[in-house]
């Protein structure tokens, strides 16, 4: 039910993001989705990849600060209001979203949203009750 998201600490220095993507590329790791926000002097890169365990290892071996977190991936209709259904469901259960990012793919219909919430288990139960399509690990890694 939960997806492993890889988080990497990035110094605000030119070339850092490219060096991370090089390490991943050199090790045959495919990026499914990413999110990067910046503050004044550092950033956290969040990645969904085809092999999170390997990604964490190769990044650590190359001296990066890395951690893995469980997140939820949901499929939403790629139409106006598509995301609303999911968020309204969580809102109804009083579950806060810490951050979210979306991606689409050519292989599957619809759009996908990665959600980081306060309590994964409870969120998944409610989402299921609301009829939201939750993606399994295999589904996401093989997109």
């Amino acid at each position, binding site marked *: 039910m939960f997806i492993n998201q890889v988080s990497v600490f990035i*110094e605000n220095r030119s070339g850092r993001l490219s060096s991370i993507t090089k390490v991943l590329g050199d090790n045959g790791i495919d990026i499914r989705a990413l999110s990067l926000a910046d503050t004044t002097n550092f950033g956290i890169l969040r990645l969904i990849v085809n092999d999170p365990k390997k990604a964490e290892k190769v990044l650590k071996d190359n001296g990066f600060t890395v951690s893995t977190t469980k997140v939820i991936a949901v499929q939403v209709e790629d139409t106006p209001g598509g995301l609303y259904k999911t968020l309204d469901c969580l809102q109804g259960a009083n579950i806060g979203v810490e951050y979210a990012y979306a991606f689409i793919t050519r292989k599957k219909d619809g759009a996908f949203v990665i959600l980081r919430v306060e309590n994964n288990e409870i969120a998944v139960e409610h989402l299921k009750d609301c009829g939201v399509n939750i993606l399994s690990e295999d589904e996401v890694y093989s997109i």
Partner: protein
Amino acid sequence: MFFQKDIETMDREALRALQQERFIRTVQTVYQNVPLYHERFNSLGINPSDIRSLDDLKSLPFLTKDDFRNNYPYGLFARPMKEIKRIHGSSGTTGKPTIVGYTQNDLNNWSDMVARFISAVGVTDEDIAQISFGYGLFTGALGLHQGLEKIGCTVIPMSSGNTEKQLMMMEDMGVTVLVATPSYALYLSEVCREKGLTGKLKLRVGLFGAEGCTAEMRAKIEENLGVLATDNYGMSELIGPGVAGECEYRNGLHIAEDHFICEIIDPETGEVLPEGSTGELVVTSLTKEALPIIRYRTRDMTRITTEKCECGRTHARMAKVIGRSDDMLIIKGVNVFPSQIESVLMGIDSIGPHYHLIVTRKNFMDHLEVEVELTDASLLESYGELENLQNHITDRLRTVLGLTAQVTLVGPKSLERFTGKAKRVTDLRNT
């Protein structure tokens, strides 16, 4: 354990009498044999025959690093070259090194001083010591080498660098004593931990010197290497390591007072400060033949106590050097020693022990940036936690230093590691 118990536990009255006799003789020797002292005493109207007691010491002029430079290479030597058995030098960061020389007696006395402090922390002829100081002109490596051999240790002269090989030798040879700079020991200890060697080595004592080391940094080295980390003090202008060293109680460094007189002065006014005050250490040699020194300004900031130590040694103790008066940064008018910043950083989890200070000036305002390595990956969960960490470090620094520094988190292992003396400050204000 004592190497020269009768001297190390000498009654202080008798010690003072010995110092006085040697001091008076030293003053006469330098006046007769070293032109610099002769001219300087004459120009100040000082007649060596008027120097009759230790109280007269404070009337004599200081000797500085510039005097060594201006009299390069042999100008300060008091003996003919025929009697000089060894030359050492300190690595001058600019220009020529500071050259020092030794007679056979000087070398013997120096070895005794080193043997004293290594015995005082429990090193014996059963030990196998690895010297990871760089050999060469630097007094550290050969100074320790002689002292360790004198008490019968097995000595492995590794020199610095090639960390993998250092650890291999330590493991394979069953090394029990490590000699290194604290910054190199810290680096070695980290690699040791990464390789899972912590607990597998036979190391038990670390003899760390040649640069300062905060209590926090020392604790980290001890944790990673499983050693008792001990501090000793010296510099080539004085003789090398062995001027002072810790005993097993590690409550200050016992000064070899039969060979040196130490004073603490106000670095601004040159005035001698009362016992217990923190100021610049000034050293006068009592037995040196090749290169006697009168009131050498070390630039090292410390304090001295003559209170009795539990170990039974009567020789005065100096506190760990808190910094150099010329390493002291003045930022927005506030005196800042890098060691203060180090203490703060070492006390904070989630960051590594290495740091880099960058001082800049913009629009006539000083700006201090502190770079530290983030090591705790669990904080990547949210920006809030990383910002909290940054703010926490900033707050702690403000409390200790009284000024606001910009804290920058950088990736692990992105700051430079050092195999010799560390260079952790970049001051760009006057460039």
